[in-house]
């Protein structure tokens, strides 16, 4: 017994003697010069692998693609550091010939790799040709599909000759999260098999170089280059943080604890509850919005996606009926605890889209008439965003904005009125019948709808799906959620769903062009039932009217105003046909701690970029952040 007591006492003394272990998570780096960021990829299995051109071999958002990679252009999902469009390695915008079969790129000079070799057109030609002759690299296929030849007439000019007209070929080299990153020719030309080369230690084209990494994949440390002026960020000034750590802090609860202890400067994403805890308990933590709803609306649009190859959903009146049975306010509360930014149209309500699409189409939406089979109704309610704000005000007080503009930014504008009577008429017009409290399909079977959700891997979307299932069930439809967990990707691609809570709309955010997702919605890419569908037309929508819009977009330039007009035509068509029921932006609870750093992007004062730190675009934060101490 004496030994036991001694042991317990010794353990207690030892713990008391070592409190500093918990306070200093990093060894040998000055905390006030170090930015600590969450890497949402978690623990990297293959930590020593930095060859980002080998698909899925190692980590990407370990800082590798944010801080060490570069390419021709960036489009910012918000306002940008000096505008949405950023010429990065290119000195100007892409130059196409008249029929879009040739693209010329003028390169910026004076840019150097971290080992002192100058970046030139030879690197671009090498990157392109290596992808063209090697199957299985990350961008092999798009190069092989598009490029006939590439040449470098001089050190700072590259000319791509294309196999067929492509007015959006430059998108391959334009960062929206990522893009084709340039390879160092002088390193890779000595490698026999580029798919089996780890590129460790990586030669960087960004403003940082690899300092060290955890062989177990928990953390990666990057150090500002001494010659940062010779990188494309150099023109914006010196990087603020000398060191940037990307780490896996663990599940959402631990991220919150780590930030409360000031051991994690940027949380990539946490739960709504985690965000509310930080807002309440930490004076130095802030989200994209200083107050409610805090989260950044990413240019991604969660929606109820129908499987349009399922006979039940072929009639647009059925799809509309299901849309009018949704009470979006309840979905907003269930999914994001009210912190959702809703959208009635198939465009994420974020970046410049609200000015390009949501505001200009408001009048059209208000006047939009839907024929239920018995009467015509105007289903759009432009006040739902305000109603959500009013609903939250009693509990959240001054945090809820009051001006119409701020409410629209935070909670979205309008949505469809929940209208069970109109839904009844629409279903009856589509030959559905009701027996007792149960709806039957035209062939007399119970109207059963399975809503596939991802489960605890994506709780926000899962809660939205559960609420929608409940609302449909209350109306007499046999609706249930079906939790897919890790099989979601396969089920979505295989069309193994009635409806699925996911997204098939992703946009640039800062640019109105919709080709980023819309081109893949052309009917030429729709797979037969049972076959794997290529991204992103998960709903397998085939429409001659849509094809016409897409084909017209292909013939006009990226910045051509006609492209925006065609985008609005798409929006109207999608409202009329309702192939997906748009719900809201994918709001990300990125939380930034201002204990050690200031200058984070924010909705109110300086929306210079999307704060979500796994985006390649987040590199600009490094030149805006300044130490507080």
């Amino acid at each position, binding site marked *: 017994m004496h030994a036991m007591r001694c042991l317990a006492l010794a353990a207690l003394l030892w713990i008391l003697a070592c409190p500093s272990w918990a306070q200093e998570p990093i*060894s040998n780096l000055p905390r006030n010069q170090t930015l600590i960021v969450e890497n949402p990829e978690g623990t990297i299995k293959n930590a020593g692998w930095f060859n980002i051109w080998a698909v*899925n071999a190692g980590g990407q958002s370990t800082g590798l693609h944010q801080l060490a990679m570069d390419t021709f252009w960036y489009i910012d999902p918000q306002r940008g550091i000096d505008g949405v469009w950023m010429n990065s390695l290119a000195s100007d915008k892409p130059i196409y010939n008249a029929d879009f079969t040739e693209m010329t790129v003028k390169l910026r000079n004076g840019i150097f790799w971290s080992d002192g070799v100058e970046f030139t057109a030879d690197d671009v030609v090498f990157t392109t040709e290596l992808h063209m002759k090697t199957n299985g690299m990350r961008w*092999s*296929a798009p190069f092989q599909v598009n490029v006939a030849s590439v040449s470098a007439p001089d050190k700072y000019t590259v000319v791509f000759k294309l196999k067929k007209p492509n007015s959006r070929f430059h998108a391959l080299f334009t960062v929206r999260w990522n893009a084709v990153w340039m390879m160092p020719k002088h390193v890779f030309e000595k490698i026999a098999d580029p798919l*089996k080369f780890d590129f460790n230690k990586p030669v960087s084209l960004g403003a940082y170089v690899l300092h060290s990494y955890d062989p177990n994949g928990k953390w990666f440390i990057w150090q500002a280059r001494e010659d940062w002026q010779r990188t494309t960020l150099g023109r914006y000034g010196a990087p603020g943080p000398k060191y940037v750590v990307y780490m896996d802090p663990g*599940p959402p*609860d631990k991220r919150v604890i*780590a930030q409360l202890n000031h051991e994690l400067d940027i949380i990539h994403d946490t739960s709504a509850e985690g965000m509310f805890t930080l807002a309440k308990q930490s004076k130095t933590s802030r989200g994209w919005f200083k107050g409610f709803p805090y989260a950044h609306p990413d240019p991604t649009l969660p929606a109820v996606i129908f499987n349009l190859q399922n006979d039940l959903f072929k009639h647009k009146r059925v799809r509309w009926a299901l849309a009018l049975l949704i009470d979006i306010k309840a979905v907003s509360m269930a999914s994001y605890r009210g912190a959702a930014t809703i959208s009635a149209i198939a465009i994420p309500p974020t970046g410049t889209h609200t000015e390009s699409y949501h505001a200009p189409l408001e009048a059209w939406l208000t006047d939009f008439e839907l024929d239920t089979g018995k009467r015509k109704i105007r289903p759009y309610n432009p006040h739902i965003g305000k109603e959500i704000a009013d609903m939250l005000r009693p509990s959240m007080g001054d945090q809820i904005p009051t001006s119409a503009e701020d409410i629209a930014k935070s909670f979205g504008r309008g949505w469809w009125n929940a209208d069970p009577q109109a839904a009844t008429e629409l279903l009856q017009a589509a030959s559905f019948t009701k027996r007792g409290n149960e709806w039957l399909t035209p062939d007399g079977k119970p109207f059963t709808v399975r809503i596939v959700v991802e489960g605890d891997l994506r709780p926000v979307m899962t809660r939205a799906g559960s609420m929608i299932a409940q609302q449909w069930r209350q109306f007499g439809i046999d609706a249930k959620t079906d939790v897919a967990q*890790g099989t979601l990707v396969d089920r979505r691609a295989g069309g193994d769903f009635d409806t699925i809570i996911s997204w098939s709309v992703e946009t640039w955010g800062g640019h109105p062009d919709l080709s980023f997702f819309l081109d893949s919605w052309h009917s030429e890419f729709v797979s037969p039932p049972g076959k794997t569908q290529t991204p992103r037309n998960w709903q397998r929508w085939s429409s001659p009217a849509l094809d016409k819009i897409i084909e017209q977009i292909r013939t006009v330039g990226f910045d051509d105003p006609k492209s925006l007009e065609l985008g609005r035509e798409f929006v109207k068509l999608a409202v009329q046909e309702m192939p997906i029921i748009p719900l809201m932006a994918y709001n990300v609870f990125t939380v930034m701690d201002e204990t050690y750093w200031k200058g984070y992007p924010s909705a109110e004062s300086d929306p210079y970029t999307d704060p979500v730190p796994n985006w390649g675009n987040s590199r600009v934060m490094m030149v805006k952040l300044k130490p507080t101490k």
Partner: protein
Amino acid sequence: MNAYATYALKRLLQFALVVFIGINLAYLITHATPIDPVEQTVSAATAFGNTSPEAIAMMRKSLREIYGLEGNLWNQYAIFWQRVLVGDFGPSLSAFPTPVSTLIGRALPWTVGLLSVSTILAFALGNLLGGLAGYFADSRLLKIAGLAVMAVHPIPYYIVAFVVLIAFGYVWPVLPISGGYRINITWGWNADFILSVVSHAILPVTSLVLVGIGGWFMGMRSLVSNVVTEDYVTYAELAGVSRGKILGAYVMRNALVPQVTGLAMSLGSIFNGAIITEQVFGYPGIGTLLISAVHAGDYSLVVGIASVSIVAVSTAVLFIDLVYPLLDPRVKVS
């Protein structure tokens, strides 16, 4: 051939059969999963980027070739066994082309270290307390200890882990809550690194010991309660042998035999990993690797981890079977 050699040979054959069947089951189950590693890779590669459908179809075809997923299941099965027989589980499909054995080799020492320390600590403390509680049945202190141990034992592990985490990571933040060592520390046999590893292991080990100690405690107390009623114990007491000697040499030593069997089984199963512990404490190890492999549909890696576990548990059982007749004369080899 004597009886023991025959017995050992039979056990060895059983061992080989169990390992063969186990690895085959792991292969079949993983290949029956609806998660396709190629689709996972395509999804990861295109989740954010701008890629045309034509290009994605081409990427899908290339990945099937590179991952060796072309051809029928029988061909893949034959290649699998050719590799396994030389200890090679092929490349990981979610960290291609890194070999599965490299990934397991990197993660395994952390899991083995964590779980062997916590298993042995729980075994030692549980048996010691259980033995004392069984022998000194009237001690109030030991009754309280017994109550405490039994109160913690039925609580689900993840709750105990979270309580420990919040208590020592937030309320009284004296211990690190994540990782196996400090960020940017230099690896090596130096005091800084060793202390860092030890400090990071305290919370996960404590949580495992708190939950694990109860089983050993109750088993040992029950065994000792039976042993103390044996004639030879009564005889020793009547003969004036000291209580300490009776407890150590006569009671606990005899009661320990079935507990040692349990220990060997527990040590064998440490190769399964501690999935919840590693997730909650962000500790590096085989459990995190396994979860990640399952989500990615990386069946090469799942089969590799499962095989290590099958071999480890089977080896532990084989070891017990072979050693038992030598240690305990009451176990007869027929």
